[in-house]
């Protein structure tokens, strides 16, 4: 009988627990204090750095969002000028996408991928540290543009030319250079992750034995390497248009502003999946654990992820349905976009079927994962509506779109990150997170998220364009609700910080296998995971699954 998947395995290695006992000459002279973190090549320390950076930026971007929501609390201009409003919406988007969500997933990848595949570290540890330290440099530069004469970027996180070229503030050149640094960081990080996954798996672990988080990250890393250079290319063209008089995006010289959008969204759509595929991986680890039942379709999950990634290269122009595409192109992109619903549906059905006839408990990671399934699916539904090109003529650039992508990003990507953090905190710190506080955080977040983003659907359908600092009176109620929800959600996240800090300092002790139903390799090393794990490769055994 052929072995069945998903994998369950036993582990034969002895070195891990005794890692402290190994006096490895390379670790002899560990620098102390801050230098230890600055110079580190350890995947766990770098992972923590990524996560801390991401959390910090999550609050920075969150404060920008709250400035926006405060101004939109009621009609009229009360607190800030439209110019600053535009800078805030732009910076909120850029920071959340490039400095909060992406580094958070990279941090989780750093921490967990070597543990999940039985590797001692990332494939290229020094490069790994370089990838991280580029980020503070990039985002210090980006944030500093807010203080430059003429103000920071004010053209939205999508920075459409010519608003971002001919009509942009002087600081745009710095914005471009900052994005270049962040892009280099992402590309190097992705190369490292691919090399790790393809080359560092424990002996005996085949591709189809890898946990889904590893699989989704492998595909994500591929997407990153494929599209971040395209972003680098398009911002380079912007730089040339601004500083060297080229006319890539200027019809006067034979260019086309829409060319910018094609290139941007060729990057931008896969980028959207870069921010959600690892989330799928996390949720696919958590749901089977707390349902105490194997994932319904491991292989179809892998295939669906790959299919989504492939399709993501074919759908970019659905962000451009009203830009005046030729009819054939409009139809092509409508069809290809609608097709994405199929593999995405497969994923949701798989999660639900995994729950069916399980033995389900509701620890904090599970709560966030379940909320992810429901709310991400709602975001998927509005995505399906947006895929219908004629209807998109009405939805486009309204708050309906804002609602849609916040549903897939906040209770989608960010909830999955939080689920992952709660899930793996015992492995990182050796202690369980405070259950009551975590639950309180969960319920406040759920209420806050829905209060913030659900009314946006209505505001958008009723005709409110996005990115406006002031609005007509019929949108007042929806906006007031959203603003209240946003402040509530923002404040609730302080609880998250509290839980994490408390968990680092102590709490209920966690065993190696912190969750009853958890199966993957990371649960075979002690909690907290020692600084060095798997220095001798473990032997990975698939145990035959009983039917």
């Amino acid at each position: 009988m052929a072995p069945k998947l998903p994998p369950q395995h036993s582990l034969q290695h002895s070195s891990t627990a005794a890692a402290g006992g190994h006096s490895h000459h390379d670790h002899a002279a560990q620098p102390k204090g801050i230098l230890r973190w600055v110079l580190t090549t350890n995947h766990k320390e770098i992972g923590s750095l990524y996560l801390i950076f991401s959390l910090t930026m999550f609050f920075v971007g969150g404060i920008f969002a709250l400035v926006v929501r405060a101004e939109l609390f009621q009609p009229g201009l009360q607190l800030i000028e439209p110019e600053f409003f535009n800078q805030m919406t732009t910076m909120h988007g850029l920071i959340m996408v490039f400095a909060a969500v992406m580094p958070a997933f990279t941090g989780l990848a750093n921490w967990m991928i070597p543990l999940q595949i039985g590797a001692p570290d990332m494939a290229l540890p020094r490069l790994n540290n370089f990838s991280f330290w580029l980020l503070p440099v990039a985002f210090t530069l980006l944030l500093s543009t807010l203080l430059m004469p003429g103000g920071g970027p004010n053209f939205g996180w999508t920075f459409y030319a010519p608003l971002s070229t001919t009509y942009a503030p002087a600081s745009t050149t710095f914005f471009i250079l900052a994005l270049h640094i962040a892009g280099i960081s992402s590309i190097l990080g992705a190369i490292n992750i691919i090399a790790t996954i393809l080359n560092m798996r424990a002996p005996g672990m085949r591709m189809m034995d890898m946990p889904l988080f590893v699989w989704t990250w492998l595909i994500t890393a591929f997407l990153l390497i494929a599209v971040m250079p395209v972003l680098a290319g398009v911002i380079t063209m912007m730089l040339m248009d601004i500083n060297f008089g080229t006319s890539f995006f200027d019809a006067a010289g034979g260019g086309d502003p829409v060319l910018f959008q094609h290139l941007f969204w060729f990057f931008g759509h896969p980028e959207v999946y870069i921010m959600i595929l690892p989330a799928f991986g996390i949720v696919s680890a958590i749901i089977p654990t707390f349902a105490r039942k194997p994932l319904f379709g491991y292989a179809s999950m892998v295939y669906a992820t790959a299919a989504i990634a492939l399709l993501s290269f074919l759908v970019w122009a659905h962000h451009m349905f009203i830009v005046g595409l030729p009819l054939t192109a409009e139809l092509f992109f409508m069809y290809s976009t609608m097709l994405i619903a199929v593999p995405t549906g497969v994923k949701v059905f798989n999660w639900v079927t995994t729950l069916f006839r399980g033995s389900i408990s509701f620890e904090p990671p599970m709560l966030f994962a379940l909320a992810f399934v429901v709310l991400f699916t709602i975001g998927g539904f509005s995505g399906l509506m947006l895929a219908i090109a004629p209807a998109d003529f009405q939805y486009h650039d309204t708050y309906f779109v804002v609602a849609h992508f916040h549903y897939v990003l906040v209770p989608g990507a960010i909830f999955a990150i939080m689920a992952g953090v709660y899930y793996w905190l015992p492995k990182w710190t050796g202690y369980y997170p405070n259950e009551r506080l975590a639950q309180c955080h969960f319920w406040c977040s759920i209420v806050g998220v829905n209060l913030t983003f659900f009314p946006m659907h209505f505001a958008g359908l009723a005709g409110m364009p996005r990115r406006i600092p002031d609005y007509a009176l019929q949108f007042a109620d929806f906006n007031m609700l959203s603003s209240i929800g946003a402040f509530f959600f923002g404040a609730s996240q302080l609880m998250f910080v509290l839980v994490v800090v408390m968990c680092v300092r102590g709490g209920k002790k966690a065993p190696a296998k912190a969750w009853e139903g958890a199966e993957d390799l990371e649960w075979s090393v002690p909690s907290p995971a020692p600084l060095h794990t798997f220095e001798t490769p473990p032997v990975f055994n698939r145990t035959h699954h009983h039917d």
Partner: protein
Amino acid sequence: MSGGYYVPATSRWPILGSLALGAMMVGTGIKLVYDTGTPLMLIGMACVITVMGFWFRDVIHESMSGLYDAQMDRSFRWGMGWFIFSEVMFFAAFFGALFYVRTFAIPWLGGEGAKGVSALLWPDFVAQWPVLNPPDSSVAGPDSVLSPWQLPLVNTLILVTSSITLTVAHEALKLGERKTCRNWLAGTVLLGCCFIMIQGVEYYEAYNHYGITLEAGIFGATFFILTGFHGVHVIIGTLILTSMLIRIHKGHFAQDHHFGFEASCWYWHFVDVVWVGLFIFVYVF
């Protein structure tokens, strides 16, 4: 080593490298926006190069002391392979821009195709490639374009030849004939330098005799961004090969274990392939 995987000790190069890169970028930005800050840019660039030098020195050192096993070698291979793929995608963005403009934007502006009605705004514009008379009269197009069958053809032959000489050098290294390897590698570097010089002459000609400038509408823009970034890659490639030459001279590389050398070959071949694409789509068609 007990067969374990080599995890390098702490290193100061990553953090110094990122600070250096940051300084270089800030300097570049100040230079572009406020027309000052050149020193910072140059210092940053020098620091980036220095850090890279030290970093690679460490890697070479570790490799020579036998700290790397076959698995580490594979990691480097995957790493370099995907890095080159990312470079391919970088050029793909520029090629994509070129194809888009030629297939869609220019015909539309000239009154053909699905958005041909746009020609109402540019009544005098005639769609053709290369665009010698951009839609708006305020943008001066090139006077004429370069013939592909002169310098560009010479450069194509040079680069293709250099790929062959490099392969010969690689084969020689595999056979352990280090002297042959050194000579052919030196030849490759020389060809690379020739290419760069000829490209320089061509740029001079383009600017001074053909009116092909960055400001010369979309033709100048696509021409310079494609050939320019390719040229930068040739310069980097030549520098890499030069350092390989020095390493050969110093007696580095084993017959069966020389990924540093191989990686530079990959890079050079990649640069070569990009040029062939350039030659076809920028010069010939």
